[in-house]
């Protein structure tokens, strides 16, 4: 188990928090009510806080003299290892909620396992994040029920978002070669074991929300290997703007 293995493994987890945190941040000030705006911003804050803990650890592990900001802002697109789901745009509130719920259920299960990692840093970050993510899961799950079993319009919009985002769920359980190595050593999580309970949880909530499970046979993948959708470049050009325009400065 080399430090590089661990660093790559961390990217696979932390980049999800960074990119989803960035996506939700775009909505700050534009929510459907002030209360939801505040709650969504809280989730962005939690995710970015988690990102910082992971990246600070990367900076420690790295042989180079780098900071959390170098990790966040100075990689190229192919070096980000987040899943495609989290980079999908804020098309409307239904997409935001469905994307969040699909991710939160997975995130919670992942952290539950990561809490038992042999690595004490992972244990600590997972423990702290679990409290936050259990709230996220409740928030997005409750909203999905409201949208599904609310009005005709909200049901139709929620179903549309589910149908469109469903293809990104399978990738959550893909294991790269590095994931396999880190998991085999007892540091990482074998996510293939989480797949059945994930779909069981999602199915049960969608049923309660009177929404249908899409009948999809094909899924999208690539993010975990750094092959992203076309949205990613725009996320990065926004996010990296200052660091790229004014290299090497302190802020």
């Amino acid at each position: 188990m080399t430090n590089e293995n661990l660093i790559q493994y961390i990217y696979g987890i932390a980049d999800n928090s960074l990119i989803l945190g960035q996506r939700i941040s775009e909505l700050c000030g534009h929510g459907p009510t002030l209360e939801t705006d505040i709650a969504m911003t809280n989730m962005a804050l939690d995710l970015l806080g988690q990102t910082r803990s992971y990246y600070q650890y990367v900076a420690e592990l790295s042989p180079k003299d780098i900071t959390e900001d170098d990790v966040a802002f100075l990689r190229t697109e192919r070096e980000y290892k987040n899943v495609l789901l989290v980079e999908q745009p804020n098309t409307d509130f239904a997409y935001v909620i469905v994307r969040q719920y699909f991710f939160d259920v997975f995130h919670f299960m992942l952290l539950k396992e990561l809490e038992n990692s042999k690595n004490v840093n992972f244990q600590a970050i997972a423990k702290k994040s679990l409290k936050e993510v259990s709230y996220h899961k409740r928030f997005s799950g409750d909203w999905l029920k409201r949208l599904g079993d609310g009005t005709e319009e909200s049901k139709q919009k929620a179903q549309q978002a589910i149908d469109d985002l469903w293809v990104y769920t399978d990738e959550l359980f893909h294991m790269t070669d590095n994931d396999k190595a880190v998991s085999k050593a007892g540091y990482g999580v074998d996510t293939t074991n989480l797949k059945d309970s994930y779909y069981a949880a999602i199915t049960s909530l969608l049923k309660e929300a009177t929404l249908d499970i899409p009948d999809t046979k094909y899924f999208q993948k690539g993010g975990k290997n750094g092959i992203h959708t076309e949205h990613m470049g725009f996320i990065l050009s926004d996010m990296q703007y200052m660091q790229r325009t004014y290299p090497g400065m302190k802020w």
Partner: protein
Amino acid sequence: MENMKEKEQMKSLEDIFEAKIARDEKIEPKDWMPEKYRKTHIRQISQHAHSEIVGMLPEGNWITRAPSLRRKVALLAKVQDEAGHGLYLYSACETLGISREELYDQLHSGKAKYSSIFNYPTLTWADIGAIGWLVDGAAIINQVPLCSTSFGPYARAMVRVCKEESFHQRQGYEIMMTLCNGTQEQKDMAQDALNRWWWPSLMMLGPTDDESTHTEQSMKWKLKRKTNDELRQQFIDQTVPQADILGLKVPDENLKYNNETGHYNFGDIDWEEFWQVVKGHGMCNKERISARKNAWDNGEWVRDAAIAYADKQADKEVKEAV
């Protein structure tokens, strides 16, 4: 006869009300209050609430581009605090018998005003520092006296708002300090932001006393403790030495410390620009209102869904109880 009696009753209610204010006691939502007091408070508190939520937009403009993770998180938290301030202020306003929907309608239709400073654009990262330092600095000067204003819910909301604002102001100043200790490019960015935000910040403290229409009555109700010109002088006296520490130049050729008065003399404010922006012709007036309106209009189906769902759940509970 009846009419006389009513008038007498009214007079005694008014006396009780005036006496309460004179004794520095709080007026609470259920207490009797003159209609003019209610209306003035709805106007001022809602204007303040609108300023908080419109104020989220110029700063929100930089959240996705913040230069470091620490700054990004701090800015998100700051903008979120503003949403929180909006929330308590709308709630305080609602106790006066007006709904949140009506208040939003007034904002969206242009009937209600908000602080004009938020109609200026945020062009560089240094603007985020300058807003914290200057705009929040001016806001605190305006708001601290309101912690002891006569209307209870407003005064209590302001205690919390002021604590958070003073934190934001220090945070903004710290952004400026970091820039001023940085490269020449960063210093230039800081100076440019001060140049653009200085005069609008002075205008933020309101028209000069002889132009201000609400001052006298507001003083009586403790909605104001000092006049606009006094507040402005206080702001300038406090801020100029802070600019000196940063090594930045305040963009006013006539700015000079006056040994006799112990205050800074300053140049003429361009009130024409102030009124232009107040009347809706600042660079971002249209964008700000349309951003708020879009958020509200696009959120309608979401709010409807939440209500429909809650109604269905309530029906289920009733059925289960039967």
